[in-house]
């Protein structure tokens, strides 16, 4: 008697849990991105108008990059993330390993001027499983209130005799090796052909050696502006949007040096077997439309991946700052710039990370 009661009770409970979760699943979407100022720009430009239009409830989650979580979810058959903002090399690797849904490019909305999506997106921003939303960049920055006649080139960053003080660098091989080579006199366009040779890698590490004792390593994107503000470093590499937001949002006297910038893409991907795949696809189409990409640029200085968005990019949302010249893709900023070569890093990340760690530990 007791047992049957218990069983009946738990069955009802279970049914209730299941029915509520089913009800929620109908109009819910879990969007995963990088947090901080970047997620805020997406919430303002994508989430809010999407919620208004469709009534879908969006859960915004933060993560620190990498495909470990996507892999774990897909392999366990319990995918709770519906759409994720990833870096290009991760998108390619995850796609290669079958962890992502393929995306039909012809389903993407045409540009505001009627150009079909496949032509409207900047070349190299559409992939089998991923659609780019923005172009971001790793640059270096300094505090102009502390260094009067500031550094101009990547070589200055590595010149601790001319500009004394600590340097902030992201803890990892990626981008740092490119910076080191450019500081050593390699032209931006030749960086990867040099880096592909063992001598090139040695040369990059040798250049990094020259400032090793002066480096403060950072890991999360929010750290570099903080390091600069605290005076822990004289100059630091950083994501350009984070520095811009510290300048525009908090009035910090930071200056960005665009020479030698390494630009990269952020892309939307949908993990294979996502619970709300259809909604995720709707969200993807909505957020990568011309207006939304342009709107995002008024919240953070990352360049839209669509050509048709560029003319619509205006001012920062609450200040009289033209956003155009702040973009990594602005012509003035591209004079000595290199695009992160995802293929090189997909091939060599394991090995170079190992060497980087060994170099760091010794």
């Amino acid at each position, binding site marked *: 008697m007791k047992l049957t009661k218990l069983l009946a009770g738990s069955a009802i409970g279970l049914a209730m849990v299941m029915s509520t979760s089913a009800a929620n699943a109908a109009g819910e979407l879990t969007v995963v991105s990088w947090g901080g100022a970047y997620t805020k720009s997406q919430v303002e430009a994508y989430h809010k108008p999407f919620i208004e239009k469709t009534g879908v409830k969006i859960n915004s989650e933060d993560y620190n990059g*990498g*495909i*470990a979580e996507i*892999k774990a979810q*897909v*392999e366990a058959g319990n995918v709770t993330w519906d759409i994720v903002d990833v870096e290009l090399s991760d998108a390619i*690797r995850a*796609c*290669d*390993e*079958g*962890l992502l849904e*393929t995306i039909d490019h012809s389903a993407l909305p045409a540009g505001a001027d009627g150009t079909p999506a496949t032509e409207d997106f900047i070349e190299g921003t559409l992939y089998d499983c991923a659609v780019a939303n923005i172009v971001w960049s790793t640059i270096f920055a300094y505090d102009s209130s502390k260094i009067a006649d500031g550094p101009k080139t990547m070589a200055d960053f590595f010149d601790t005799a001319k500009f004394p003080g600590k340097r902030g660098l992201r803890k990892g091989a990626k981008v740092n090796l490119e910076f080191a080579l450019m500081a050593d006199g390699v032209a931006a366009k030749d960086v990867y052909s040099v880096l592909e040779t063992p001598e090139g890698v040695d040369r990059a*590490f040798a250049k990094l050696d020259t400032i090793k004792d002066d480096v403060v*390593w950072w890991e999360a994107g929010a750290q570099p502006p903080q390091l600069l503000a*605290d005076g*822990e470093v004289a100059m630091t590499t950083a994501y350009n949007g984070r520095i811009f937001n510290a300048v525009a949002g908090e009035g910090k006297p930071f200056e960005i040096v665009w020479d030698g910038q390494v630009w990269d893409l952020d892309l939307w991907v949908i993990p*294979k077997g996502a619970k709300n795949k259809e909604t995720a696809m709707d969200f993807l189409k909505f957020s990568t439309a011309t207006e939304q990409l342009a709107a995002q640029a008024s919240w953070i200085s990352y360049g839209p991946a669509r050509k048709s968005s560029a003319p619509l990019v205006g001012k920062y949302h609450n200040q009289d700052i033209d956003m155009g010249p702040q973009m990594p893709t602005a012509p003035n900023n591209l004079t000595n710039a290199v695009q992160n070569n995802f*293929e090189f890093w*997909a*091939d*060599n*990340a*394991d*090995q170079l*990370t*190992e*060497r980087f*760690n*060994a*170099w*760091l*530990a*010794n």
Partner: protein
Amino acid sequence: MTDAAQSSDVLVAYDGTPLKQQLAKTTRRMKFRALLLTMPLVLFIIVSFVLPIGDMLFRSLHNPTGSNVAPNFAEAIQKWDGEDYPSDDIIKIFVEDLATARKNREVGKTVGNLATRVNYEIPGSRSLFTKTARRAGKITEGPYLDALIKIDKKWENKNVWVTLKRVTRDYTLSFYLAATDRKYDENESIVRADELYRIYLPILWKTIWLSALITFLCFIIAYPVAYLLSTLPLRTSNLLMILVLLPFWTSLLVRTSAWIAMLQKEGILNNVFVYLGFIGDEHRIQMIYNATGTVISMVHILLPFMILPLYSVMKTIPPSYMRAAKSMGASNFLAFRRVYFPQTIPGIAAGVLLVFILAIGYYITPALVGGNDGLLISNLIANHIQRTLNWSLGAALGTILLVVVLVLYWIYNKLVGVDNLKFG
């Protein structure tokens, strides 16, 4: 008549069955009940401990990526004797398998999986596979090797084929080699990795050495504290005990963060030094984000694990022993060395074992304050599990760590004797 005879031979219970039988039945029932009571624990240990560790051991040796992605080729290539190139039939199967894998895109069975696996062995070869697979469907006729070489020159490199033969076997030692900074060369013989890429053994030695140092420092600090605790009057010693236990009950993260606030460049300690004029403002000492910071905070965090066993042992040593030794003419030092110290060895042994084993697998503190040169082997394992997703290598490193601990434990047992341990 017979009944009576029987009952006089064998003792019977109230219901007539032999007592022995009845007794055995009862004991059996009690044993079963005892077993049932321990069942939750047994199940818990199996599910949360035995199975995961078994899985880890297995994963470090067993990696079926190759045969999952290219099942037919995996079988065919094993017939190749390693001379020249594999025959064109084998390469044909390879091309077909690649094309199939690319078409199906099944999780865990994609070309990307194979590419990642081979890339562990030949760094930089990842794109060779993804690129070739994209065009594999278009290769319709032989000679297949030439067709592959036309796609990419790297297929001329025999080492690619030798490696393919190796990675399509399900059981492999590759990950143990990688975990000990070794690799296979083109002739399938084992060589040490290039010096610039050796990281795991140096870090493993460093982990052992830092753990030993931390254990030693804990011992030096804890011994007098435990002595004080065990000899002071109860009121005072209770108060001191709370001072020991309070940090013990505080969250690990909080304590580690507190050390960051204390030791960082703009931190409390440096500020005090500058204020007192020990060091100039320009020469603040780097005490955190390196091995120093790791040692300082780990000694603090692990200290209670040394103090508590020592205290519990010292508490049981009657003060009269020391007095007796001294009354027979022993100096203070001799009495301590010959009478008191030997009696505390069970406590020392337990404390040392606890602290050392905890230290050698410590993760969160070195991750937060380790910086560049304070990282331990556990941080590398975490890196492979969470970031590079090379779970087999992570498992091999974990297994090596487990074996190191077991070997050290065995040596320790020979030296001290585990029966001598007293945890409290």
